[in-house]
């Protein structure tokens, strides 16, 4: 579904992505793991065209680099940025409505809102509450719910587990697994928490200083010595 082919990103003198190549098949959950500063967020920004980037990124054979970011959103490539970034001064419901900003199909939007409320009942209880007053876990649910309102075909999540208690992380990850199973939604999951990401994903890439060093079936990487040493905190 998505093919990233030899992309390079520079921030001034910093070469953040180096000839990065990877692929996401339709209907799968693919995870990109790596340590701080490896270039994970930059990869997602490159796909959403939020940073200048050389190379080629094909979404269903169409080059995304030629499109402005709002067109990319229109194609269904939806980015949940690092740190959730919900609208703090808008209510939960208004946040969800922002997710459907580009959509014109009112019925579909209403249906999707119901769907999100079913997926995260806590959001329904808090529909009129201001986004900024939600707990961290609820904010992450809202960020994902808001992205679902954009009719995603490829959902890109940047560290959804960041700063959350393990039990909340479980809740959110099982919602992602559900989504993938029931709707066939393709997911690109960026995580530092390699353990939980590898358990959820079908396929995994390890990113180190801007390029892929290891890749394979997620379950296989869980037992890979190099991955266990560097990312799973085992001796």
């Amino acid at each position, binding site marked *: 579904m998505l093919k990233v082919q030899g992309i390079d990103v520079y921030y001034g003198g910093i070469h953040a992505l180096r000839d990065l190549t990877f692929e996401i098949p339709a209907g799968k959950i693919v995870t990109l793991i790596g340590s701080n500063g490896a270039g994970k967020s930059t990869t997602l920004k490159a796909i*959403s065209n*939020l940073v200048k980037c050389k190379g080629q990124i094909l979404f269903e054979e169409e080059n995304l680099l030629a499109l*402005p*970011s*709002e067109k990319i*959103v*229109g194609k269904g490539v*939806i*980015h*949940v*940025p690092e740190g959730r*970034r*919900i*609208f*703090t*001064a*808008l*209510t939960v419901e*208004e946040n969800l*409505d*922002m*997710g459907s*900003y*580009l959509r014109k199909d009112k019925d579909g939007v209403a249906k999707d809102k119901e769907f999100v409320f079913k997926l995260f009942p806590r959001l329904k209880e808090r529909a*009129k*509450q*201001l986004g*900024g*007053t939600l707990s961290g876990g609820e904010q992450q649910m809202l960020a994902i719910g*808001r*992205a679902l309102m*954009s009719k995603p075909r490829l959902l890109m999540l940047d560290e959804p587990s960041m700063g959350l208690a393990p039990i909340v992380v479980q809740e959110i990850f099982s919602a992602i697994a559900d989504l993938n199973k029931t709707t066939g939604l393709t997911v690109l999951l960026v995580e530092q928490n390699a353990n939980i990401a590898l358990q959820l994903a079908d396929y995994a890439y390890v990113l180190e200083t801007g390029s892929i060093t290891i890749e394979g079936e997620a379950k296989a990487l869980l037992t890979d010595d190099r991955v266990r040493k560097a990312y799973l905190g085992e001796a």
Partner: protein
Amino acid sequence: MTNLMTVLRNLIFYSVILFVAIQVLARFFDFASKKLIKVGGGKKKLLIAGVGVFALVLPLLLAGEPYILRTSVMVLLYIVLALSLNIVLGQAGQLSLGHSAFYALGAYTMAILTVSFGVNFWIALVAGGVVAGIFGFVLGIPTLRLKGDYLAIVTVGFGEILRLILINWGTFTRGPAGIPGIPSPSFFGMAVKGNTGYYYIILVMVIVTIIISKRLEDSRLGRGLAAVKDDEIAAESMGVNPANMKILAFVLGAVIAGFAGGFFASFVHYVNPDNFTYMESVTILTMVVLGGLGSIPGVIVGAVILAILPEALRDISTYRYAIYGILLAMMMIIRPQGMISLDSLKRRSAADENPRSIWNFKSFRRSNGR
């Protein structure tokens, strides 16, 4: 020395009065907006109709009071100006401290076109809006890269540069002496004479501005503006184009201010650069902040209060800007959301369940919540 003491004593005295006034007004508006929000559709229409009828017959009631009628025109003019700044500041969240520049552009366009070129009032009025809009676009461009304090500095600079141009480009603007003799409009061949005609013209401008603001707020564009104001990066990931949104807000705000400027020039028949100082921008800003950033009824209330205040306080006019400064600072500390806040209008639960009690000094601690 005694002089300084008097000034200090007066400032302290006014501060206390302002503090009490803010508290009383805040209580009043909290109470009123709670009542009004419960008013249903039919009654609401009746209420709006009532206000409309009052506005329509006001000049008849004030037939023997030209001074009050004149003040009413200025109040309405400031409502237009404050609402135009509110689009930029309240709806799009862009701190602009040079708003009087657009007002000046409209006014000078009116003055130069009518006096030097004999152009008709209505054409000059539209031209003023267009000229201001073009400059709004030009000023909108740096906003794409600048935020907060930096943007504020650029907009201050823009306003001051424009004022210096008005002062120094003598052949065109007649410099500090200004341009006198700006004619009154005529309406289908009838000359608009006296304040009553101007009153109705500005009343129409107020209504149109309110409709534009309201439409904008309820539209998709308005949601885009609110998103950009809240979090640009998130807005972009929803498919909003922040650059377009910000430029749109600047242009729209500028066009409306330009119209207001054109009206002003004709109304007072005379413009000079002193009408459009930085302090004028601050006055408009204070109206928006006092009323409530982004809240249309709030901004109207803010404009009414601050446009009447100097008239009521003629005796202490030397303290006018000091009072605005104290007022701005106090509002930020005691009631940053303004008299009629956006949240209270939208019945958002955070505001409902957690009302800021104004007698309770906890509100000081919570004050930077929003």
